[in-house]
């Protein structure tokens, strides 16, 4: 259902959701509950497979390790004790949980956005924000050739694996040798990229490119889309405000 929605609406609402989530103060669990319900509703509307969503969004969680020390450094009601005088506190646990939940909700919405929107449509949305055209052009080219170059990188790695099959992992050749081979592959990718850029420049010039990035203008948002956008902003602003006012 969400797949057909205009990308500009989706991008703006996703960012607003993340902003509202970030603005929610620690301890405002009712607000976080509502945000979670909202996220869940959106995921249901997106009709994505639950396993897929869980696996992909879980990938962002290892970074949560960075927040774990708060468990011990925030002072408060003691929870349990580790050797060397580390004491976990209830308040610390809440702080960590707050960060983890916020991160997961944000990743969930960002993931739902990309799972329901082709990147090309997101690029159009970015142009709608009047991002500098040169930057959008570079991003569009990066995206376009990412897959071409990833394939080349994979071919290089396969070739390396095929030729170094007899070398037992960690033995045989020195670390410096392995690093040099890998660096050589990176250099190789850059040179191939530069050659390709040269050919692309020819192809662009052949069709009249003069250095100034141009795009075909997008039709304006429909009234329905604008109403949806306004409604979304209002709801999220209300949630964030409630959190700040009562738990801030």
């Amino acid at each position, binding site marked *: *259902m969400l797949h057909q929605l205009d990308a500009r609406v989706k991008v703006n609402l996703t*960012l607003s959701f*993340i*902003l509202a989530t970030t*603005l929610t103060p620690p301890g405002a*669990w*009712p*607000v976080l509950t509502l945000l979670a319900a909202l996220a869940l509703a959106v995921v249901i*509307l997106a009709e994505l497979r639950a396993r897929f969503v869980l696996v*992909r969004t879980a*990938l962002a969680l290892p*970074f949560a390790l*960075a927040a774990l*020390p*708060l468990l011990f*450094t925030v002072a408060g009601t003691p929870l349990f004790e580790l050797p060397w005088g580390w004491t976990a506190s209830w308040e610390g646990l809440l702080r960590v949980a707050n*960060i983890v939940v*916020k*991160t*997961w909700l*944000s990743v969930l919405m*960002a993931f739902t956005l*990309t799972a329901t929107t082709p*990147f090309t449509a997101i690029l159009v949305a970015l142009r709608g924000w009047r991002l*500098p055209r*040169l930057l959008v*052009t*570079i991003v569009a*080219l990066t*995206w376009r*050739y990412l897959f071409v170059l*990833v394939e080349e990188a994979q071919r*290089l*790695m396969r070739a390396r694996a095929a030729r170094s099959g007899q070398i037992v992992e*960690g033995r045989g050749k020195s670390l410096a040798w*392995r*690093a040099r*081979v*890998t*660096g*050589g*592959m*990176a*250099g190789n*990718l*850059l*040179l191939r*990229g*530069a050659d*390709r*850029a*040269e050919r692309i*420049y020819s192809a*662009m010039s052949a069709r009249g490119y*003069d*250095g100034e990035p141009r795009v075909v203008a997008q039709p304006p948002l429909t009234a329905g889309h604008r109403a949806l956008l306004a409604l979304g902003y209002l709801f999220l602003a209300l949630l964030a*405000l409630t959190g*700040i*006012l*009562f738990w801030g």
Partner: protein
Amino acid sequence: MLLSPVPMHIPDGFLSVLVSVVFWALSVVGVGYALKRVNEDLGERQVPIMGVLAAAIFAGQMLNFSVTGGTSGHLLGAALATIVLGPWAAVLVMTSVVGIQAVVFQDGGLLALGANIFNMSIVGVAVSYFTYKSMQRLLQQLVKDQPWSIPVSGFVAGWVSIFIAALACALQLALSGSSPANVAIPAMSGIHALIGIGEGLITAGALAFILAAQRDLLQPAAAPVGSHRAVWVGGLVIAVLLAILSPLASAHPDGLEWVAEQRGFLDLAQEPLYEIIPDYVLPGIGNEALATILAGVIGVGLVLAATLAVAYVRRRVQSVEV
């Protein structure tokens, strides 16, 4: 998967709104200036080169080599991009890479993207440039024109750029109150001191390869320091500032904690708002248990409505197909 293996992409939820906004602002200024300089200094020919080389750096981040016992070396690419393309183009290239990682692969948050761009493109590039140019000069004095001076300078630039960018990342986390400074800074700098070796080695290997292929790809950075003196100075200032601030912050975590507690303009905005909304408007909502129950009820309603909507649409699609 295309996830970048260098753990420096901050997800959303870790940075306070104030820190996010400040670093977005810094990044907008930095990237905006880089765009202006690229428009002025480089020809239209450079546009596809920046785009495709950004894709190449992105793909290059997938390459790895085993170090010992399961750990492996990876590339971030800020130093390599800087040396090959010059600082201004490199800022745009790294911004493009980091931006796509956040938007498409959820590698790094969207609100946190400002800080991530700041760390990996602006700090990464400025510090790389400063280090590379300084090393080049130093080696020039010491050994004259040795062929290995470029890869060696590249190694040092790669290592320093990763290390300093990690310090910036740790400081942002500490400033946001989501990781205590006395843990975050030593941990991040320790991990990235190791990761930086991989970065340096791959950067050096790539430069050696490009040199051996006798390609003129290394031209832009070969320009004299004078042409980019501002970047050189910027890199120096950033590196020195972070190198001094980090141990200070980690020795006095309470100082940062204090900053974190001053949740900036939000706190300022809060006081008057309290006065505007009188207590009796929402009686009992202050009671957290009740509020939670209420939120739960509304939430269940929301989810239910979404499920019904999907079921309704599905049924209609099916009846159309029949």
